[in-house]
Each structure stands twice: as structure tokens, then as C-alpha cells.
């Protein structure tokens, strides 16, 4: 019935597995995690964030407050998914995320990438799909948090640059959209251009999901065996200043190639 032996179907026999590894238990915890995310997201967007906005404060203070609330909510969600056994994750080097003017870039194999990055990066802004501004549950959150829509490109670059120049930390996925795992990355040049315009430092985060899960190629109920493990690893800082010479279009192409090569080298090493 299933094409692959790395996904889990309803059991034909009851093996001696830990309780939380049983198919229906995992289906339940996975389903609950999705529900928590959905319900939590709507609560955040329709109740919590509007309430936070009602508390007086400057624009920047409000934004900071909203971002902190999102981080706490995402941290809680990740904790639930992890401890209930729906997923597992590891995150090395997270303490180097969240510095002023830091541009964090990451590959984008799964739905949880942005959730994990925001959960572990204090005060981060991020570039988010413009569709979020048309989603009634999300629009208040993305506006209140001062996130940057990914289109149109010129506005994205302008806002992302302003945010970094103001000393905030920004998360971008140069691939633009979730990708099929184990394919070479293709980076759009927007992140490289933003980096050269304003980032004090560029920090790559390498994300691996084994076995592939919550990617575009696998339906959610086809549970991977073993459970999906999200391994995030913060790479060495890249100094964009080394690429800031010559005409900007040439420089951003060179920098983009350097970033893509960094990811290709990481993939080859694994």
C-alpha cells in the first residue's frame, strides 16, 4: 500500500515498541501538534497580539513585545512536539543567533524551519511570504511584528535593508520556498543583495530533516520511521565586507555564489 518502507502505516502487528512510538500514538501527537499550531496561531493573531498592541509603548517597544510573544509561543509549540514524540530536534550554535545587524540565512526543507529559527533567535525579524498579509489569522501578527513581505522585490530589499541598518536581526530563506530535500540549493539573489547593503554579519544555518518530513513531497499523515529529526546547525560567520567592492550587481552575484557554495560544501560533508 505504501510505496516506501521509510514511512509508517497502521500497524499489522503490535510490536514491542515504546508507547509513544506506536503508530496511532504518533498519529495522535502529530495531529495534536498540528492542531496546537493552528489553534495557537489563530489565538495569537486574533486575541493575544491585539491585546499586546493595546498596551501603550513606542512602535519599537511594541514590535519587540510582539516578537518576544511569538518566540515564546513557538518555543512552547516546539517543546510540545518534541516531548510528545511527534518530532525530535537538535540545535547547535543557537547562542550565536540574534546579534545586531545579523542576517541569518537558512535552507528551507520543511514547514518547521521558520518556527525553529524564530523560537531560538531573540528579537528576530524575518522575510515572510506575502500571502501571510492576506491571511486573516496572520496579518495582524506579521504587521505587529514588523516582518517583511517577500514581494514586491524592491520593497522587500528596501525594508529588509532598513531593518538591518537599524541594528535588528533578520532571518531570510534565500531559496524563497520550501524545497525538495537532497537537491542542490538554488539561492535567489535577494538575500545576497540585502546582506551587501546592510548586514553587519551573515550567519548560515544548515537544516537537515531526516527522514524528510513536512516537506512539499510528503503528506503529513505518512509518518516517517524513525520519527522526523530536525537537525539545525549554525555555521561560521561570513563577513559581507569582503564582498563589498565593484559594481553592486556583480558583487551580489559573487556573494550569492559564495553562499550557495557554502551550502553545497556543507551538504557534501554530510
Amino acid at each position: 500500500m505504501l510505496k516506501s518502507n521509510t514511512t509508517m502505516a497502521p500497524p499489522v502487528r503490535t510490536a514491542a515498541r515504546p508507547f509513544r512510538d506506536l503508530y496511532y500514538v504518533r498519529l495522535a501527537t502529530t495531529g495534536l501538534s498540528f492542531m496546537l499550531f493552528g489553534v495557537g496561531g489563530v489565538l495569537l493573531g486574533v486575541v493575544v497580539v491585539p491585546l499586546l498592541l493595546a498596551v501603550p509603548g513606542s512602535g519599537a517597544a511594541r514590535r519587540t513585545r510582539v516578537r518576544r510573544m511569538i518566540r515564546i509561543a513557538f518555543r512552547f509549540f516546539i517543546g510540545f512536539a518534541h516531548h510528545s514524540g511527534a518530532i525530535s530536534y537538535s540545535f547547535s550554535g543557537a547562542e550565536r543567533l540574534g546579534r545586531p545587524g545579523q542576517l541569518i540565512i537558512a535552507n528551507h526543507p520543511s514547514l518547521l524551519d521558520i518556527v525553529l529559527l524564530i523560537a531560538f533567535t531573540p528579537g528576530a525579524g524575518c522575510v515572510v511570504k506575502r500571502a501571510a498579509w492576506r491571511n486573516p489569522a496572520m496579518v495582524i501578527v506579521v504587521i505587529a511584528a514588523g516582518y517583511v513581505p517577500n514581494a514586491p522585490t524592491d520593497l522587500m530589499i528596501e525594508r529588509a535593508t532598513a531593518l538591518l541598518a537599524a541594528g535588528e536581526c533578520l532571518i531570510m530563506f534565500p531559496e524563497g520556498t520550501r524545497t525538495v530535500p537532497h537537491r542542490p540549493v538554488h539561492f535567489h539573489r535577494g538575500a545576497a543583495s540585502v546582506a551587501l547593503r546592510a548586514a553587519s554579519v551573515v550567519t548560515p544555518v544548515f537544516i537537515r530533516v531526516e527522514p524528510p518530513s513536512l516537506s512539499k513531497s510528503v503528506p503529513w499523515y505518512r509518518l516517517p520511521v524513525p520519527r522526523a529529526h530536525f537537525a539545525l546547525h549554525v555555521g561560521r560567520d561570513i563577513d559581507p565586507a569582503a564582498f563589498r567592492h565593484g559594481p553592486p550587481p556583480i558583487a551580489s552575484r559573487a556573494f550569492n555564489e559564495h553562499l550557495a557554495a557554502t551550502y553545497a560544501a556543507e551538504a557534501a560533508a554530510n
Partner: protein
Amino acid sequence: MHDRDAILAELRATLIELFELDAGRITLDARLYEELEIDSIDAIDLMDRLRRQTGRKIASERFRSVRTVSDLVDTIHQLVNET
């Protein structure tokens, strides 16, 4: 730079410098995206440069309707002759 010939000359020099294009490719009817391979990110770098050269900001809505070198010359021409 107020007449179209002067604008074209200066634009040609800018395109050569920014994108390392061969001068021969920059004809009036050359399409920026398809023929000169100037993508949306390049266009922003080009806008930044033109703003510094002309002292005026080209609205991005205006630039989105630009297809060819000739369109761009027209747009700059209108811009610098606006009061």
C-alpha cells in the same frame, strides 16, 4: 542631461559599468530582462544609481512598465524634465 541622446549616452555608460555589458548589446530596442539579463535585483541597483545621477527617485511602479532601453530613456527623460 535633458535630451534623449545625452540620456542614452549616459545610460549606456552606466549599464556597461554596472553589468559589464558589451556596448554593442545596448541598443534602443534591447529588452532589459530577456536580452540584457537585468533581473529584478539588478533593476534595484540600477534605480539606486539613476537616483544618484539624476537626483530623482524613479517610482518602482513606473519602472515596472519599463521593458526596453528605449522605455527607460523615456522614463528618465520625463523624470528629469518634470518640475
